[in-house]
């Protein structure tokens, strides 16, 4: 592989690596706007100008680092000469002369390429003092589609958005119109930016020209706390950054993972957090007591009651290992459980000796997320059906499956039904299904949402959302990915692993105080697909499970 020297630091790179990427390998940041690692190189913004010396001969002009590729040994690049600094300063000035000074009302302020590079490479004073700034009257807030708004005044004509629609989304709604200083971005006549990945153009836009309809004016970005996590919209498992303010999620942004979602995610996934805000939350354990009224209780009371119900004490039959004659015990899991939670539910099922365990998931709309290997398509509307099943939530011999419980008379045959997630799918909100599940003599519901199902339960236990807990999901391609809490759960809500571990401790004291890492370690011992993996050591891109 050829060697390239950038600012006296030498690195070996594959043939064809461009100088911006090579610079990153040795810790030299070359400023750029139009360059994006997944889009074609156009060399338009001219911010990445560098001095290039090849075979001892200096090139007469400064070269754009994005379009300069390392082909053979002997390339010497400098980004710190006076000429380069002067040129970058000049480009910064050009970009700013016609840029509006509306940072105080611009959504991008705080994560704006112009702000960052102005600070780093710009000049504090403007020489563009006596001319009028160019504006695009009437084009300050053009909805390009349902999810994206264009403010042409702020655009720096980098064409990243145009290239995104052409090359990644392959829908080509956007184009470059007019020319010279009047150049503008827009949708072609009669088209609107409505592809499933549309909001990605907001991410690739280095300035505030393209903003997300959903996020517009929702929060100043510098007040946001950002935590890495996963999207739960479907089974692709897009890596996201949860951006929240004091536990109030404001947006999801895609987090680069070349093995899964690359730099992209779909608009549906971006909106998936809104469920956490619009759906009423189960905030305290709730037990149906005398007279059939549900009342909030403490966790100790709730877990004692759960243990009693599981052991059949309330029902007047004593559990002794085999299924009671009076009815079955069933555990209905969910594709939203973490693999660890699912494993503890499976453990519970083992302790109760029941084969009736299953995972319920909805089929959702189909989403395709492109990546370097072609992309991943998600069809199920839950992130972890595979993980939950691998962790043990599959019907045993003659066990009831999810369909028996949700559509058949399975629940009516149950003395006890445990639903692991009060929002496992649309059925949790469907009166008929809830009534059917309610036919179980005793109904225990875990979960974060105060759904009709939770309301119907004899005992409802509030669990953390995925933004509030540690765990792992296994995506459609069998890749296990880890996530950690973005913020703590509210009120009395607790993470599932903590709750289940405390409940299981009533069966076996050695199971008290389990952490997700410990549960995962058990899983790695029990299930061959997870063998050798450890939750805390999973790589940032996730790990493929053993086939």
């Amino acid at each position, binding site marked *: 592989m050829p060697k390239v020297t950038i600012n006296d630091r030498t690195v070996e790179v594959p043939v064809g690596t461009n100088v911006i990427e090579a610079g990153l390998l040795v810790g030299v940041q070359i400023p750029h706007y139009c360059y994006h690692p997944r889009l074609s*190189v*156009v*060399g*338009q*913004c*001219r*911010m990445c*100008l560098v001095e290039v010396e090849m075979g001892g001969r200096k090139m007469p*002009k*400064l070269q*754009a680092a994005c*379009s300069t590729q390392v082909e053979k040994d002997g390339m010497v690049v400098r980004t710190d000469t006076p000429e380069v600094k*002067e*040129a970058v300063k*000049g*480009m910064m*000035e*050009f*970009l700013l*002369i*016609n840029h509006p000074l509306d940072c105080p009302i611009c959504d991008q302020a705080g994560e704006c390429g112009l702000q960052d590079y102005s600070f780093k490479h710009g000049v504090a004073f403007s*020489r*563009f003092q*006596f*001319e009028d700034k*160019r504006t695009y009257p009437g084009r300050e807030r053009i909805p390009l589609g349902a999810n994206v708004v264009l403010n042409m005044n702020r655009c*720096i*004509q980098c*064409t990243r958005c145009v290239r995104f629609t052409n090359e990644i989304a392959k829908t080509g709604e956007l*184009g*470059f119109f*007019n*020319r*010279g*200083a*009047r*150049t503008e971005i827009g949708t072609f006549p009669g088209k609107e930016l409505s592809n499933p990945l549309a909001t990605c153009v907001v991410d690739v836009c280095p300035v505030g020209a393209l903003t997300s309809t959903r996020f517009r004016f929702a929060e100043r970005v510098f007040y946001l706390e950002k935590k890495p996590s996963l999207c739960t919209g479907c089974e692709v498992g897009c890596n996201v950054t949860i951006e929240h303010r004091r536990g109030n999620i404001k947006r999801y942004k895609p987090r680069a993972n070349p093995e899964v979602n690359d730099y992209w995610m779909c608009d549906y996934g971006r909106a998936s957090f809104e469920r956490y805000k619009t759906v009423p939350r189960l905030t305290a354990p709730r037990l149906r007591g005398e007279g059939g009224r549900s009342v909030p209780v403490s966790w100790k009371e709730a877990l004692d009651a759960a243990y009693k119900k599981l052991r059949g004490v309330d029902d007047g039959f004593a559990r002794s290992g085999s299924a009671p004659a009076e009815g079955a015990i069933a555990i209905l899991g969910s594709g939203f459980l973490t693999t660890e939670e699912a494993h503890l539910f499976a453990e519970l099922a083992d302790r109760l000796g029941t084969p009736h365990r299953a995972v319920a998931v909805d089929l959702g709309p189909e989403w395709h997320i492109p990546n370097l290997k072609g992309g991943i398509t998600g069809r199920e509307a839950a992130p972890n059906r595979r993980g939950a099943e691998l962790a043990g939530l599959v019907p045993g011999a003659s066990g009831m499956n999810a369909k028996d419980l949700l559509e058949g008379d399975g629940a009516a045959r149950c003395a006890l039904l445990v639903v692991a997630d009060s929002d496992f799918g649309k059925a949790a909100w469907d009166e008929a299904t809830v009534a059917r599940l309610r036919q179980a003599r005793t109904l225990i519901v875990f979960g974060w949402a105060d759904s009709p199902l939770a309301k119907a339960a004899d005992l409802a236990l509030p669990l953390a959302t995925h933004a509030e807990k540690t765990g792992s999901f296994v995506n459609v391609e069998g890749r296990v990915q880890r996530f950690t809490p973005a913020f703590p759960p509210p009120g009395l809500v607790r993470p599932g692993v903590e709750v289940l571990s405390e409940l299981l401790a009533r069966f076996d004291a050695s199971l008290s105080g389990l952490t997700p890492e410990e549960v995962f370690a058990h899983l790695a011992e029990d299930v061959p697909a997870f063998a050798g993996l450890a939750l805390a050591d999973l790589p940032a891109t996730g790990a493929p499970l053993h086939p």
Partner: protein
Amino acid sequence: MPSFEPVLTRNVGRKEALTLAGYKQLGGYEGLAKALKMDPDAVIEEVKKSGLRGRGGAGFAAGMKWSFIPDRKNKDKARYLVCNADESEPGTFKDRLLMENDPHQLIEGCAICCWAVQAETCYIYIRGEYTKSAAILEQALQEARDAGILGGSAMDSGFKLDMWLHRGAGAYICGEETGMLESLEGKRGQPRVKPPFPAVVGAFGAPTVINNVETLCNVPHILIRGADWFKSIGTDEKNTGPKLYAISGHVERPGTYEYPIGISFREMLDGCGGMWKGGTLKAFIPGGASAPMLPASSIDIKMDFDTVAKAGSMLGSAAVIVMDDQTCLVRAAARLAKFFNHESCGQCTPCREGTNWMELLLSRIEHGEGRPGDPDLLMAVSGNVGGNSLCALGDAAIGPVRSLIKTFRPEVDRHIAEHGCPFPERRFFAEGA
């Protein structure tokens, strides 16, 4: 000046040259016939030896450009010749003369080039506004097709060649070679990042030669009369052959004149009847709108590529714009800046923003609102455009501006000090000039 027998313009004014038969009678297509009997590489060698340099502006050696086409013997690979007839530089009107008066000379030149690089398709990308040239060329192409020169086996040599006329839609930037290729492919006309150069990845992804009309018109004559004859014309080894000069501005008889390359500007001025109404020379642009202006003191300059370049300007397309002492150079530069601002494609930052800023500054100075710091600011802005833009348009746009400040600074300062233009408005067309 020594008498010079016109080469490129020898058929200008002869109506018979417009037809294939007439052109053949005048000795046409002999160069192609000769070339087709030669080895393609030998044709390239001959052109290389002649020292022919591109007449479009950059002055790159034509034979060298052809030899950059890789893998020329491979019959399975597509190669293209694109003839650049998008003549839109202000002041340039030499290619139009050749196309309107001697279309077959161009077709013959294109055909020889195609043979040399073994390209089976040639596109002539013509400026959209050139309707007359397009009609004449289209007719000539049809005749050549009917005569079997195009569309099948060229002159029964077995070389399959086709040639198409493609009309542009009126953008100066499509005269930039990669902008032209984009436009030819049906895309928005804006230059591409180089490298890869068109010789490697050009039209439709295939190796492509791009030459100017005048360059290609020289080729048949080189083949017929030989490289040594061609080299005998001109200043030196590097500046050879006949050259068309499009002379406009304050001269008595503006028009396109053919001279050996390297004729002095003074001789050229005499040749077109001297200054208009006996005026005094103040400045001239030697090579089209993008060439820096030269002062009257450069009157004895030899008009060839290297001498003009040494004087700080460029021969470019050899469009000579002459300005007398009643001309406001600030207004002239402002007008040129306006042109480049209008024609910038808008994709790269320095050109998009810089040309706009330069126009605003210059028109402000011209309208009496200039400030003392403006000339320096103009130099700084143009300095940031030059060399930093994606294509050569940025470099072109700063030519007139920088030369105005460098060479004619007192005139600019006078505009600023007097808060207005010291020169009277002149309306040439009203006077019938």
